[in-house]
């Protein structure tokens, strides 16, 4: 099923991606998926079966909140917004992610 030119979202990084996406403002589920796809040059595809459970999980944690609203096309949709707690969480996750990337890179770097 996975195309060779597509990447699977790494376990545990979807939350970070969603929080990061919402940093620019409220967005609905479909929009979040689109933005992640666009920002990753179509490399990252978020499955709906992962996106919605993740959204609801984040909401339970109190990191995002939701509200019904209208899209530019006059379509009723549920918009998600970052809460202050969510912003703090984003900072934490980002720091961890950077550390992770740095560590991975150091390990993977070819021996000089």
């Amino acid at each position: 099923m996975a195309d060779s030119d597509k990447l699977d979202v790494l376990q545990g990084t979807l939350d970070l991606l969603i929080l990061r996406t919402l940093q620019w403002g409220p967005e609905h589920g479909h929009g979040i998926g689109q933005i992640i796809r666009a920002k990753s040059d179509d490399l990252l595809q978020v499955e709906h079966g992962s996106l919605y459970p993740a959204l609801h999980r984040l909401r339970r944690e109190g990191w995002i909140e939701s509200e019904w609203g209208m899209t530019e096309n006059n379509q009723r949709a549920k918009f998600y917004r970052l809460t202050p707690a969510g912003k703090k969480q984003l900072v934490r996750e980002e720091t961890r992610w950077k550390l992770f990337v740095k560590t991975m890179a150091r390990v993977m770097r070819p021996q000089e």
Partner: protein
Amino acid sequence: MWIQRWFSKSSEDSDLSEELRAHLAMEIQQRIAAGESPAEAARAASRAFGNFTNVQEDVREAWGWAGLERLSTDIRFGLRMLRKTPVWTAVICAMLGLGVGLSTAIFSLVYGVLLQPLPYPRADRLVSVMPTSVSTGYPRFYVNAALWLYWRKNSKLLEDLALTRPVANFNLTGQGAPERLKGARTSFNLPAVLRTPPLLGRVFTREEAERDAKVALLSHAFWKRRFGADRAIVGQKIQLNGMPFEVIGIMPPDYRYPADDFELWTPLYIPPGEIQHGANHQYLSAGRLKDGVSVAQAQAEFTVMMERLAQEFPAVYRSRTGFVGALVEPLAESDTFQVRSTLQVLLGAVACLLLIGCMNLAVLLIARAASRTREMAVRVALGASGGRLRAQLLAEVMPLSFAGIGGGLLLAWWLLRAFVPYLPASMPRVSAIGLNGPVVAFAVGVSMLVVLLASLLPGRTMARSDPAEALQRSSRSVTGGGRARNLLVVAQVTVALILLFGGLLFARSFSALLRVNPGFSSQGVLTMHLAVTRAKYGKDERVADYYRRLEDRIKKIPGVVAAGLVNRLPLSGVMQTGGVEFEGRDDSFDSDWRSATPGYFTAMAIPLKQGRLLNDFDQPQSPRVGLIDESLARRAFGNESPIGKRFRRYVRGGPQEEPWSVVVGVVGHILNDSLERDTRPQVYWPETQLTQDRAALAVRTSGPPAQFAPAVIAQIRLEDPDQPVYDVRSMDQWLDRTLQTRTLLTATVTMFGAASLFLACLGLYGVVSYTADLRLREFGIRIALGARAGHVRSLVLRHAGTLAVWGCLIGLLLSWPVGRGLRSLLFGVTNGDVLSTLLAPALLLTVALLSGLGPARKAAKAEPAVTLRNE
């Protein structure tokens, strides 16, 4: 919280599907915008979206709904498991039902007597005030009119204070059989203090109390019983003590001051001569605190008042060691001090029993969990979390707690119905005992808690188990949870030992009490009370003559050996006490004041020690005489003979104008208040010279006393057809009544001790035999290698013995402080009682080893060939 979420579930569900539909619509729009045809776009979008329901379910899992849905699956699964092991289930249900039933019954007792608020508006504001003088041996005594007037005038923190003369006898005559009514004379403000208006009619006025008006308020129960709840009775006259009283009102059913069985109230008239500090202590008080005032604040105010009184009347209120104080306590507590500690001990004992039952359940659950280790390991391997396993285990045992609630409530209901009539007479508010809301809530709570606690430990053990290890493991090694099981058994033995120790202490106290000689012989003595209608007889001489004629008549009944009258019967719960002084000495002796007829001493078999008894020649005109008992004789005169000395009643600080009486004899000392405390000596005057209106008749018979009651009553009626008698009992019954509280305590704690012994040994047996079963293979090998059967037996017995010894050691350590706490309830033994200290562990160890015997024998019979092949 869970429930709230459950209810909002459906709305969140539809919210979710709308959200997903909106997403799909956007997807389609986007595709159309990109140039696809609508039909194609819809198809592609749906395909891209995947399974709608799947997504929904995944989201729901994140919500935690699934938890609830899983719970019902777990419970269904649990019920199936329980059905598969009917014996196990039955044992646990029986144990839970028993534990919950017993504790609920005891709790309903405690709740009804101690915790339930009084049935009056703002009952938490009601207090009782009593004088107290701990240093002279009276921690609480009755109020007198002088104190009441002083308090009422000076207290700023009480709204009002009412005064009640607790027992006033009213002989009801006229309509139907003569009847003695238990009434109370109350100050006019009592209904206002209790904030209870009458059901019908009106209450007393101040003016009625001041002129001693002949008006009466009837209790609801009496009104229903005697007058069939006839409303027309209000305004009519009834004959009380030979005088017409107008019924002015009927009180509601909840108005039951000072106790449940009071039938009518009349205004309290205080003759001016009675108002005297230091004398006539015969009243109870009930007051209402002002809003915002605490009991402690009122207590402080009354202490200050009493200090002032002690300065003003040092002769009355000051003693060598201090001064007479005032005790302010909540009204609901003022009549429970006698039974409070008993009830607390019962509650503690039942809590111990419940704890043992709970640990027993835990042991059984652990054993059951251990037998399912593989199943659980498979679940863990397949990804079940520890919480999930715990939840499942809990769901499996939750149905047990429902069985516990159902069975327990039934048992409690039966226990209450069967045993409430046997509760001690001193226990107040017995009618309030029952299965009411708080009691049922208690049963539910206790049952849930026990099951929850019992399932916590096995749940933890299971969640910790490492699947790989458990799956590899065969029955060759002893399965996990062994230490937890052993600890639980040791704890059970510990608690059982404490209960047994307490039970033994109480049983020893009881047997010590049975050996107490009250100073009289109760066997074969019939007693009854009569209150004389003063209006009919008038002067003292006529009352005394009436008593003499009664005594003469009763003595002539065939089978009656002796008969006599006294104003207060020993051990009947009522007393008349006061000081006695001897001529030429300035000390006084606190004594029981008694007026008796000559036949009384023979009837009660009170021995004469010196001089003579009272006789028929002691008449109002003859020289005044009296008897003192041997303990007073010894205390006042030592070895000197008291015969011929003169004595009289002594009132502290009051004028002394009573004539002297000559001591003509010394009689044996008796226990008047209770068998447990020897409080005061006795003095006796002839009824002819100190006549009292209330009399108790003691008749010594040659057969069973109850058989003589009709003949005795018939003779009384022949003398006076309007004379009611009450409290017709044998003297043995009075004796039993004084033992009631102790009987209840001893029987219950001993029973709980025995039950705990049984339960603890059941737990011990379970663990020992289970462990022995697991080691059966090991035993087989040992036997194959040449071990003797006796050696294998001792291995198992040693296991049982070790557990029991540890439990006993810890139990003995803990029973020391427990015994100290019980000290005030013990009689004739101390908390360091050697016999109980030895007997309790000996009993436990014996039964423990006996219960280890079965498994030991089985282990010794292990056939190596069979057990080794059994893999």
